[in-house]
Structure formats: structure tokens, C-alpha cells
């Protein structure tokens, strides 16, 4: 079945074409970062309008690249939550109405389920069950995945998400928001041992995270180092390195604990922070210590994209799941409310 996937939950417009026989045929992502940069943040209404503007041209591009026409489609998948409601509605309206006009089924997909299943788009596919670390600007979760739609939340951030902590620490150092990737770059040239950043919540049992304290520690360190309110370049690099190492260590310690606790030694990394090189390297070592393996999608499929929505939607459509004709979105939607894939079709 040829499935068109639409992702519009936040500030990226993602469109992809996935075929259940041939795999991922084409995908395009339009990032709105430049649109929002002049405001220094995300502007939800602008995001919606930009999704409206980019949706159809991206669909045309993807179809053309794959050498298909809309008439070849067997189904359409769109992100129906969680996310910004205005942004979600654009993708849902577009996907649902296009499917209706073509007389094919459509299905709403959970954004985080898309991220969880993104590694399935690569050649090296992990077997169920596996442990997933979802790390992005909005989420930090450890999930046990028994199968499609069978998710057990093992732990999550009690306050800031890991990506949010990166962005905020970067902001404190005067990097433009969102500055997580810029902070990682600085960290490459820094001495991670100069400042002893804490490893929050690793000294007690459990799989929850807390990154808010690291933000406070960063602020105090900056205040102690700055001369007349200005940080020396080397201080910036050392603080960035200390911060990044603390976040990565904390994530790795909890992943190891989750794998030991469940006896599952396959680990997948998904979400925007999953593109962080140091995190990838460290989790590879962690998994190997447990005679396991780590799987991650290519960086372009770690951040928001339409391919993961097309894949997750194709699995659900293939099992006979269809969303009804009404356009609906769920801005807040716990992943544990998802149902296992219907057996057989």
C-alpha cells in the first residue's frame, strides 16, 4: 500500500511517501525556523499559516520525486496529536479532505508513536521488544515497546525536557534560541571536567529524569565565571562541555538502568536530541556493556518528519484502522492511551 504521510504538529512541515512493499520512496521537510527566528520563539499562528502555504507544494514535490500521482495512493496518514492545535488542524484537514476526495482511507497518527517507530525505516530494523529513549525539545521519556501500539512508560522528565534544557543553557550563554546544537558545537572544544555538574536523580532508584536543576547550576556557574557580565570564550566552551556531558551521562545511566530492569538489551534513540553525536557514542558503549545494541534513525528522521508518520500510519491502515470522516486532533494525548495494532487484516 502506498501511503502519504503528513506531519504538522509544530514548526516543521513534513511530507513523505511510504510503500509497504518498497519502503520509503521520498520525503521532504520544510523547517520554519527562519520564519520564527526573528521573533526569538515559535509563533503558533504563524506556524499554522506556514503549514497551509507549504503543504500542497511539498506533496507535489514528493509525488514527482517518487514518480507517482495522487491516484496511486492507498491511504493517507496525518499527525493528529499531540502538538499545537492550530498546526495539527492544518495537517488533519489537508490529509482527511484529500483522502475523502480520492475515496481512500485516512488515519490520524500519534506524533510520538511516529518517533518511536522511525528506526523501522532504516535497513537495520530492531526486533520487538525494545527500549526507546525519546529525547526532544518537548519530551524526555523511556518507553518499553512490546509491539506497535504496545507502549509502557518506564520513566519521564518531571520538569524540563532534555532538549529544552539544552536550549535554555545555550540561551544563558548568549547563543540564539534554540541554541542546543550550537551549544554542542562549543562543547566539542571544552573541558568537561572543569566544572562538576550534577547528574540529577541518578543517585536514587527509578527511571524519571529532572533537568531543571542543571539549568540552575549552569546559571550559577556562569555568574561565578563572568567578569563584568561577560564570559570568556574558553569558559563558555568548558561550561558547554560540562553541561552536555552531564545531560548525556544522566540519559545513559537511566537507559542502562531501564535495560537492566526489563532485561531488554535493544535500545533505540529517537527525537531531535537523538541527533546529538556524543549521546549516540555514549549509548553505543552503554548498550555494548550489556551485550546489547543501539539503533537510531539517520538524523533527518530523528527530528520531526513525515516519513515516520507515513510508516506508523501505514501499519495502522494495513491492519484496517481508519479515522472517520470528521477532522479531529488531540493536542494532549498520552502515548499509553494508544491501542495495540489490530491483529491481521
Amino acid at each position, binding site marked *: 500500500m502506498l501511503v502519504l504521510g503528513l506531519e504538522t504538529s509544530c514548526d516543521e512541515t513534513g511530507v513523505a511517501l511510504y510503500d509497504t512493499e518498497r519502503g520509503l520512496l521520498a520525503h521532504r521537510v520544510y523547517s520554519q525556523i527562519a520564519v520564527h527566528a526573528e521573533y526569538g520563539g*515559535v509563533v503558533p499562528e504563524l506556524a499554522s499559516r506556514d503549514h497551509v502555504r507549504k503543504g500542497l507544494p511539498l506533496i507535489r514535490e514528493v509525488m514527482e520525486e517518487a514518480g507517482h500521482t495522487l491516484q496511486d495512493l492507498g491511504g493517507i496518514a496525518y499527525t493528529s496529536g499531540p502538538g499545537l492545535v492550530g498546526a495539527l488542524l492544518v495537517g488533519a484537514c489537508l490529509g482527511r479532505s484529500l483522502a475523502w476526495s480520492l475515496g481512500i482511507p485516512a488515519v490520524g497518527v500519534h506524533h510520538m508513536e511516529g518517533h518511536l517507530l522511525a528506526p523501522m525505516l532504516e535497513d537495520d530494523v530492531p526486533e520487538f521488544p525494545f527500549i526507546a529513549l525519546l529525547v526532544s525539545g518537548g519530551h524526555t521519556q523511556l518507553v518499553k515497546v512490546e509491539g506497535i501500539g504496545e507502549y509502557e512508560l518506564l520513566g519521564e522528565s518531571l520538569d524540563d525536557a532534555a532538549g529544552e534544557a539544552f536550549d535554555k543553557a545555550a540561551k544563558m550563554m548568549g547563543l540564539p534560541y534554540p541554541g542546543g546544537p550550537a551549544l554542542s558545537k562549543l562543547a566539542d572544544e571544552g573541558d568537561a571536567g572543569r566544572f562538576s555538574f550534577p547528574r540529577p536523580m541518578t543517585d536514587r532508584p527509578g527511571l524519571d529524569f529532572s533537568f531543571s536543576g542543571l539549568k540552575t547550576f549552569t546559571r550559577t556557574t556562569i555568574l561565578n565565571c563572568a567578569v563584568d557580565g561577560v564570559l570568556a570564550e574558553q569558559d563558555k566552551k568548558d561550561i558547554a562541555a560540562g553541561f552536555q556531558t552531564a545531560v548525556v551521562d544522566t540519559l545513559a545511566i537511566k537507559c542502562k538502568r531501564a535495560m537492566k530492569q526489563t532485561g531488554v538489551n535493544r535500545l533505540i534513540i529517537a527525537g531531535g536530541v537523538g541527533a546529538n553525536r556524543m549521546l549516540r557514542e555514549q549509548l553505543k558503549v552503554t548498550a555494548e556493556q550489556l551485550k546489547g545494541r543501539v539503533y537510531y534513525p539517520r538524523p533527518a528522521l530523528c527530528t520531526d518528519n513525515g516519513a515516520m508518520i507515513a510508516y506508523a500510519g501505514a501499519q495502522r491502515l494495513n491492519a484496517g484502522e481508519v479515522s472517520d470522516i470528521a477532522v479531529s486532533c488531540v493536542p494532549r494525548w498520552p502515548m499509553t492511551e494508544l491501542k495495540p495494532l489490530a491483529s491481521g487484516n
Partner: protein
Amino acid sequence: MTESNPQTTGQIRLTGEDEMVSFAGRMSSILTGGGLVFLEGTLGAGKTTLSRGLIQALGHTGPVKSPTYTLVEEYDLPDGRVCHFDLYRLGDPEELEYMGIREYLTDGTLCLIEWPERGRGVLPEADLAIHIDDVGEARILNWQAETDKGAQWNRQLQQLVKEWQE
């Protein structure tokens, strides 16, 4: 800070996260009947920690996640609804209209708003504006009542500060 007037302003010094959470818990029994509370202070000052103390004392048992990414988190609690906003990522105050801000600011809802300066011009006047300053490990909370309701809260907060310091 404007000149201090005991009718409309108050202050307390708190040391460490536990004290902040515990004081916020005591505040929760004062900030009743809904209203608008601004939480000001730089990144890492403790705005979300204060909110967590308040929301959990009002009966929420799960984590109080930072609303930075989602802009707002809602809690339906036994004594009424609490909406926890973080306008940090808001590009333009006008966006609040598109978010349906007026629907949140209804009677009986307690709205806690971090980074209210990003919503200036669209947000109405706060009942109580709390500013958090950090001084090493300690945090100093300065608040200012802007409405009659805020002034009433302030009187009770003054009493709480007295009890707290005894």
C-alpha cells in the same frame, strides 16, 4: 521594584528547592477562587519550581512539567482549574488571542503565567505579580498586588510570612 507598601507588596527569602516548594504549598491555600498570577525572574530562578509547589499542594499528584514547549498545561483539581503558562517561546503577544487566552482567564481558574512580559499589551493586569531574584543558593520573592483581590491575598500572605519566620 517600586517602593514597598505593606498594603500591596510583600517579600520573603527562601533557601533551597525544598523551602520554595513548601512555601508555595502554603501559598496555595491563600490563592483561592481563581485569579491571575505573574511569575517573573530569569532562567533558572525557580518559577516552575514555585508553580510545582502550588499545583501539587492543590491536589495534583503527577509531575508538573515545564510548559515551555506546549505554552500551557492545564490541571483540573478538586478546588478548581489551574492553568500554568510559559510564554517564553511566544513570538508576539497577539498570539495569545489565537491561543484563546480569554477562555482560560475565566472566573474560578487560577492562571500562573511565567514570562508574562512576552504577553504585554494582551494580558490583563495581574492580581499578583511575583518576582523571583536569586542570591546564591537563596531566592528572594517580591510580590505586588495589582487588584483588590491581590490586595486581599497580600494581607493573608503577610500573615503567612510572619508565621513562616517564627
